[in-house]
């Protein structure tokens, strides 16, 4: 999901964290007084998303940087503050940016940046990975065929698939997958309508290079 303009950033933040998207953090209920140890509310997540995204609007508009998710900051040394950590990833520079937002002050109070640090994939990334898989000349057809066999109907889009993503880091791999770790790479589990999972154990989706790698063993 490419964000079209600066004005879209807030919307994207809010849309990504609708009820059901982020476990208990998606309130979806009447506003209540927030106590320090509570999970972030949907409103707090949307607000933290906006504040944390402000410094990357151009890159987000260009689709180069994406907001992965927002997590409550649980630093016990800052136990008295209501804070949120926003995870952003810059795919063109392969940099993770974590911005800590103080929700009482409404500002970013900490920023840390690193290459080669890969937080778990977001739901949007799982969908992007599935689109890359479906676009692959060999695997795309295989997924569609398996889907049709399992469900008795044609696959319309990646949204029809049950998806789970895990970070892939190489452990002695040769070939292009050796760049994973610096590149943002996913293993993708794909669930079919008959509740079975495709064997995707040798497939790695490289979101930085926008390519599929096949592991050999």
């Amino acid at each position: 999901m490419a964000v079209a303009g600066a004005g879209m950033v807030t919307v994207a933040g809010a849309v990504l964290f609708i009820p059901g998207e982020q476990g208990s953090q998606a309130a979806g209920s009447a506003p209540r007084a927030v106590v320090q140890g509570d999970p972030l509310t949907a409103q707090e997540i949307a607000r933290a998303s906006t504040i944390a995204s402000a410094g990357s609007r151009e890159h987000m508009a260009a689709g180069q940087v994406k907001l992965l998710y927002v997590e409550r900051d649980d630093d016990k040394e800052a136990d008295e503050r209501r804070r949120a950590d926003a995870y952003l990833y810059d795919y063109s520079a392969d940099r993770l940016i974590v911005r800590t937002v103080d929700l009482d002050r409404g500002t970013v109070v900490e920023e840390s940046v690193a290459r080669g640090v890969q937080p778990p994939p977001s739901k949007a990334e799982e969908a992007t990975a599935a689109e890359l898989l479906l676009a692959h000349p060999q695997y795309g057809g295989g997924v569609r065929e398996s889907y049709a066999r399992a469900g008795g109907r044609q696959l319309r889009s990646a949204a029809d698939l049950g998806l789970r993503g895990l970070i892939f880091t190489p452990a002695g791999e040769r070939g292009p997958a050796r760049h994973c770790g610096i590149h943002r790479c996913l293993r993708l589990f794909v669930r079919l309508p008959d509740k079975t999972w495709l064997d995707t154990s040798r497939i790695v989706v490289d979101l930085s290079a926008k390519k599929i790698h096949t592991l050999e063993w």
Partner: protein
Amino acid sequence: MFLRLALSCVMLAGGLGSAQAASAQAAPATHGAQVASAPQAMTGAQAAPAPQAMTATRAVTGAGAPASAAHAVRAPAPPCSAPYRIDKTLPNGARWQLCWEMRNIEGLTLTKVVYTPKGNRAVTVLRSTALAQIHVPYDSGRPRYHDIGALGYTAIALQSADCPGGERREQFVCVTTRARGHAYLKSDYDGPNTSAQGHDLVVFSAFQVGWYTYLVEWAFSDDGSITPRVGATGSLSGFTTTPEHGWPIGVGARTFETSHNHNIFWRLDFDVAGKADDLVEQYDFSGSGTAKRKLERTAFARETKAVNGPMRWWRVVDQKVRNADGHRVSWEINNADSSEYRGPANEAFTRADVYVSTYRSCERLATINPSPGCAKSVDRYINGERVKDPVVWVNVGYHHVPRDEDGDLMPTHWQGFRVTARDVTAKNPR
């Protein structure tokens, strides 16, 4: 705020203990000897439980106050609001209070865990605990999964039948009470037996990670112990291999399902009786092959990796807060049920069973840690720093050699460890 109040209460009791002046070095040997004789003393005391309990309570409350004094103190504001608050008094009077949160990355996370033994003051146990990784290497060498993706996203909406006798919180968390068998049983010469059934407060969530469903559970017992465990169910992956790496599934011996390990890491940020003065100790009992066993204590003043050993256990002890007997309050960690998987050099995180690090907010997962400016795996967190505020990482392996019975649906296989109250109360607070 609540934790601080609880701490100050317990510390007040500590200040009254006669053993307070004893040096830290001298205490352990004496302590060990006292522990050895404690069971007989406790058995004897059961003949007159009420007065003994009252005496103990007076010492702990520090002001000759009755047992109910704990409730007379104005209740501090809970650290989280109602949907996330768990406050359960079990049938024997033991009370557990904690908060839960479904975090994106770690999934179910329990925070601010407080235990109140019957008739005693509240004592803090854990600042937080959550899974820190599920590492799944297959015996054929590949694949090797790190199953914590964004675990919170994979939480399964629980149905009523999935949470028997309990209460579902925001679909994903079950809070329930479960029988745990005999708390104790003792016969009498001419009267009825003295016995009681024990109970656990159980908090769990289920996560769908590929083929596997993981049941992630903490049981808080009415004797002050905690049992974190994970059950794997759902379906086998269907990865096939050669006979030396698997087991034949299905008819004949044509298809060999690949054996694999689940190496599960838990992160436990202990704050025993508050954050201050916590120390991790390792206990060993030398004398294998001889009639005698000798207690040996090793204090982990600096960050340490430890491996399991026969009879070996650890404890997180508050060096200042003591129970009514003058013994330091602690929680014991026993990791005796692990398959102790050891991976290749590039999986150094598999080469110890318990890690003790000093608290850093950026050290969250045992592998593929998601924080910039922080090491990437638990073995790298251990770099000789002085431990000011210990965080314990427990690695429990389960080696799954598939069997025909695993054919869908796969029966749940469990793995976990035990955290036991040690000298939190001066006697069984039953």
